[in-house]
């Protein structure tokens, strides 16, 4: 495929920004109040470590010319790596099901109140399946085009909310000190924006070199700054108490803005642009699940697998929709957050194993 210098940056920004921007802010305000910025910055710093681990592990695979699903056996051993691939297959489909249910709850409660959730899930599932069938290269090219739209959308949103913000709350960011929940909040931030290992699946289509490290670090910076600014503006517009209660603060801000005309009614436009990035996000996750299962079961033809995995994610999302109270409660459990942190730390385990096995030692020339 045709590659360009900042392609990884565009793709990783789209991938990482879409879900936290929409769903991370109310839980963060709820648990950390005025100090969410500290958890965000520490989480962003931890991401630098995870990205570096991903880069070093990816470079080893890139030098061998193999994809990570193949090369990983040389680091973690045959059965260790296969266990990780099986876990990642489960994780990728699980993540898609969570996204689908989040989107269905959001879209169903705001725009399609009388539509049964299974119908929205079916449509979203079919769209994700068709997008994943187009293949990896097409996903990258779609992300290339969507990036500029998302960037303009985010900048526009930030400008829209600056006007109505109450800046008298700003000193509270420094004066309110309660570090009781700081550790769990950092873990929560890492669970939302820490899955940088997933870019190992860009191999062998895109090589891992210093530009890849630069691109991933830039994407991390952009995601951290964008989510931080959005968090800040939600806080300054809604306050701590209402900000933690409102389910979709950005949508409420768009609808409640003092602008009228096109700007005041632009919520469907923003949601449409955001939904494109969500579909790219989930289609890539299906691609990851298919890559893992295809390697495990030696299945070269992946199209039937795409249907199977998307169907499984859709059915799991349907299960959540049958008891949304339990679903919402589960998302805030510490065990749930711990699972995500364990998965997101995968590049760290592989790097440690690679160091122990001497994969980074330079071979002596004879």
């Amino acid at each position, binding site marked *: 495929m045709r590659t360009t210098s900042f392609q990884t940056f565009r793709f990783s920004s789209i991938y990482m920004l879409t879900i936290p921007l929409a769903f991370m802010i109310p839980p963060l305000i709820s648990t950390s109040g005025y100090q969410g910025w500290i958890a965000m910055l520490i989480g962003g710093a931890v991401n630098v470590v995870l990205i570096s681990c991903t880069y070093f592990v990816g470079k080893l695979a890139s030098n061998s010319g193999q994809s990570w699903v193949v090369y990983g056996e040389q680091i973690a051993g045959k059965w260790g790596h296969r266990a990780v691939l099986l876990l990642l297959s489960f994780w990728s489909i699980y993540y898609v099901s969570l996204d689908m249910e989040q989107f269905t709850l959001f879209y169903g409660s705001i725009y399609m109140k009388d539509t049964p959730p299974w119908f929205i899930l079916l449509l979203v599932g079919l769209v994700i399946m068709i997008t994943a069938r187009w293949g990896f290269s097409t996903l990258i090219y779609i992300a290339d085009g969507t990036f500029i739209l998302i960037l303009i959308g985010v900048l526009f949103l930030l400008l829209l909310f600056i006007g109505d913000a109450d800046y008298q709350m700003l000193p509270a960011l420094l004066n309110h000190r309660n570090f009781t929940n700081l550790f769990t909040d950092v873990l929560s931030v890492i669970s939302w924006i820490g899955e940088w290992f997933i870019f190992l699946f860009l191999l062998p289509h895109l090589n891992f070199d210093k530009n890849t490290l630069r691109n991933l670090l830039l994407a991390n910076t952009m995601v951290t700054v964008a989510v931080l600014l959005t968090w800040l503006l939600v806080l300054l517009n809604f306050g701590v108490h209402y900000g933690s209660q409102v389910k979709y603060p950005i949508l409420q801000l768009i609808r409640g803005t003092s602008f009228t005309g096109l700007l005041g009614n632009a919520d469907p436009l923003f949601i449409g642009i955001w939904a494109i990035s969500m579909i790219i996000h989930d289609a890539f996750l299906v691609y990851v699940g298919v890559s893992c299962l295809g390697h495990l079961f030696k299945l070269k033809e992946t199209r039937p697998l795409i*249907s199977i995995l998307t169907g499984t994610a859709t059915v799991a999302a349907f299960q959540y929709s049958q008891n949304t109270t339990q679903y919402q409660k589960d998302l805030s459990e510490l*065990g749930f957050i711990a699972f995500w942190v364990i998965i997101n730390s995968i590049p760290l385990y592989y790097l440690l194993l690679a160091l122990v096995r001497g994969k980074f030692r330079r071979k002596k020339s004879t």
Partner: protein
Amino acid sequence: MLAICFAAIALFEWKQLHNKPAQGKKAFWWLFSLTLVWNIGANFISWWPNPNRFILYLLGWI
């Protein structure tokens, strides 16, 4: 219904394939059957566990 719909699409995709390697056939049918049984259970039985339940069984003690 969702389970059956996507299973039907998967079957259709499989039938469309021209080259079906022997090992791939066995693997596909195993995977297809397991996921179909699981998804039908998940679709129609109210107490069928969802992925959140598995994760919290393993890590809910934290």
